[in-house]
């Protein structure tokens, strides 16, 4: 008798493999993109199934949502470019021998890795044990947030630098190679968009802020919240409520760096009250975490939105 839980796992895994396979091996960008977004959603389910609700939220918002939006952007760009009638002839495939060798090696790799991974997932490591015992009496309730903002806060800090660097890279492209806007406002706004936004705005704001607030005690946090707020911004950008501008205003730049800046300042300032950077002070640690996390949320939301927008700045557009 197969347990129902195992049946679910089996279905999930088969789904993941099937969809990932058809996404990366399919013809056509659009098809691959849509399949990849479905893959992201299945992945979110898998995270939930493997007791990682924080990841499920992040995957749904970032992995499936924003990556999907970015991919669709790329598809739209290609589609607009090729409207002249040029056929998609880019995919000059490598030879059959190469494919066969690659396939054979991949199958060997899969078998070897599967055996290795299976044999490794048993023990409780020293770092995990330490994190558990230290985390029990921690002032933050959610163990993942404890690791992200305290034990491995330095990683989180540097990861914000990675996010900022991606945006600076996009800025170079925008500034030096002028391309038309990907999302020009439509001449006639569809009648249902305004009611959508009036309902979606408060809901998404509320959900975003809830995720931020809940993050210290239960699943959620700066990344999930930032991604949701960025998604709201994407809606505004797509419906012409936000229009691209040629410069990043000082206010926008401040929001983009505030998270990383506050985090770094705290890292250095910790040397005043302790002998280790990034050590939280005895008093007011919780408010400090909330402050930093709020700044992180703002920066993440703004950076992700600007990465999607493909412009240096954004301004309020005319609503019809």
């Amino acid at each position: 008798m197969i347990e129902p839980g195992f049946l679910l796992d089996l279905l999930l895994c088969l789904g993941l493999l099937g969809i990932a396979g058809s996404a990366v091996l399919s013809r056509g960008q659009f098809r691959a993109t849509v399949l990849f977004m479905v893959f992201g959603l299945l992945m979110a389910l898998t995270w939930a199934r493997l007791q990682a609700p924080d990841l499920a939220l992040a995957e749904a918002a970032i992995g499936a949502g924003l990556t999907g939006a970015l991919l669709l952007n790329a598809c739209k760009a290609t589609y607009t470019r090729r409207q002249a009638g040029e056929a998609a002839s880019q995919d000059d495939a490598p030879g059959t021998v190469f494919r066969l060798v690659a396939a054979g090696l991949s199958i060997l790799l899969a078998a070897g890795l599967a055996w290795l991974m299976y044999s490794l997932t048993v023990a409780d490591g020293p770092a995990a044990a330490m994190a558990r015992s230290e985390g029990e009496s921690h002032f933050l309730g959610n163990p993942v947030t404890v690791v992200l903002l305290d034990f491995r806060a330095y990683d989180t800090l540097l990861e914000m630098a990675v996010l900022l660097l991606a945006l600076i890279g996009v800025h170079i492209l925008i500034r030096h190679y002028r391309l038309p806007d990907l999302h020009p406002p439509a001449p006639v706004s569809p009648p249902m968009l305004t009611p959508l936004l009036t309902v979606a705005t408060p809901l998404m704001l509320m959900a975003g802020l809830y995720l931020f607030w809940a993050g210290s005690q239960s699943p959620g946090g700066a990344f999930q919240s930032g991604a949701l707020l960025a998604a709201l911004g994407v809606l505004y950008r797509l419906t012409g409520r936000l229009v691209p501008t040629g410069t990043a205003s000082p206010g926008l730049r401040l929001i983009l760096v505030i998270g990383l800046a506050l985090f770094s300042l705290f890292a250095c300032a910790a040397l005043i009250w302790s002998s280790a950077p990034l050590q939280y002070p005895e008093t007011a640690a919780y408010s400090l975490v909330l402050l930093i996390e709020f700044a992180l949320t703002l920066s993440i939301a703004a950076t992700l939105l600007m990465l999607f927008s493909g412009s240096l700045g954004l301004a309020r557009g005319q609503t019809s």
Partner: protein
Amino acid sequence: MGLTELSILLPVLMVFGPLLLALLVFLAQWQRSADWLGMGLGLILLALLTPFSGAVLLEGPLEMQLGGHDRGLAIPFYVDGLTLAMLWLNTLLFLFIQVYAGAWLQLKQPAPAAEFRPLFLLLWSGLNALFLSGDLFNLYVTLEITTLAAVPLVILSHGHAAMAAAMRYLLFALVGSIIFLLGVALVYAQAGLLSLPLLQEQAEPHPALTVALLAMTAGVAMKAALFPVHAWLPEAHASAPSPASALLSALVAKAAAYLILRLWMGPLEAQWTPAMAQLMGALGAAGIIYASIQALRQTRLKRVIAYSTVAQLGYLLLLIPMASVLAWNGVIYHALTHGLAKAALFLAAGNLIMVLRDDSLRNLAGCDRVLSKNILVIGLAGVAIAGLPPTGGFIAKWWLISAALESGQWWWAVVIGLGGLLAAAYIFRILSYAFFSPDPHQETPIHQAQGQLTRALVWPPVILAFLAIALGMAGGLLAPFLEIAAPVTGAQA
């Protein structure tokens, strides 16, 4: 300020100084004032590095737990001789390239200044963070910082070729970092640890850790452009703007190669067999020979220098089969000399291109008279890379060859000698174009354009080239620093 305070303050300053400055520059859109602040920061770091190195020499390798958590839970900063050498190289190069880049940006129209300076500073911070890090996952994050700072630097020089090269670089780096992360995950699953010093103390041979080591090596090799996964480097480094090329070749690719040494020599030392070490050495040797020959066949100056980078990175792998203190010192010395000389070469090449508008080797004809300082730099830095006495390259090769002979592996000595000969050949080939070709130019246009080259453009490469030579006199002085906590046994230098 006592030594203890200094040993805490300096690593923090090395990471967060450039980082906070980058944010400030991005926020306030400073231009020239950012250069002055950057130079000031570089000088402060240089001044503090001297007593800091003394402190590490006296008190042994430094290990500092971030966040004040227990060892094993926290991410540590770890400083030994190798780290110290890389921090010195980083600080020196960023200081001089900052001077150069400030003047270069003034001449560029349209100036990519608004993005160049934050990228430059974030790359500085990221490289310092990478060299200081003693935690596997943190190394992954810092590697991504260097990648995402380096690829945009390539597209700063406009044009289709640069973007295509950047895309190729990005794809290699992306796949490489994922394979590296697989290795990190395997280590965590097996040992339950990410901290390198702890892994070094506790690791026992385990097949999973061997696989992890191989995965991490393969991933990082793609970022370091080691033979045979070097295909992206020549185009990317050659089409980047010259100050960026200098950073990419002298530091970014080397940072990835540094990681290979870090992993093989310390934490995962128990995980490899002599046969694997010989294979790594063979890959390094193949890279040296293959890329040197490629460098001899190029027709463009920057591509010669870029192929030379692939070749020179190969030497670093020779440490693995030899694994003695002598080889350790030799490899670090080689990394230092190559870093200084390669940066000097690219900066000088940038000057030549600015005047000649093109970097075909044929165009160099007659430059020896009007652009003498830049040609001099190519000569001096080239001599250092080829390893002629009395340069730093000579000491490095001397130590490496002695280490090879002492360990009875004479074949590496042959490779090193051959590599030096080939390097001398491709450098003298550049010089022969400059000295001996008939002069096709009217003298006047070059003379006019030469006026553009301000002192801030001419002197940094000259000083860097002289430093690469001067390293040759300091071998005995610096050896004790390099040996701090050298994780290999054997003959002293």
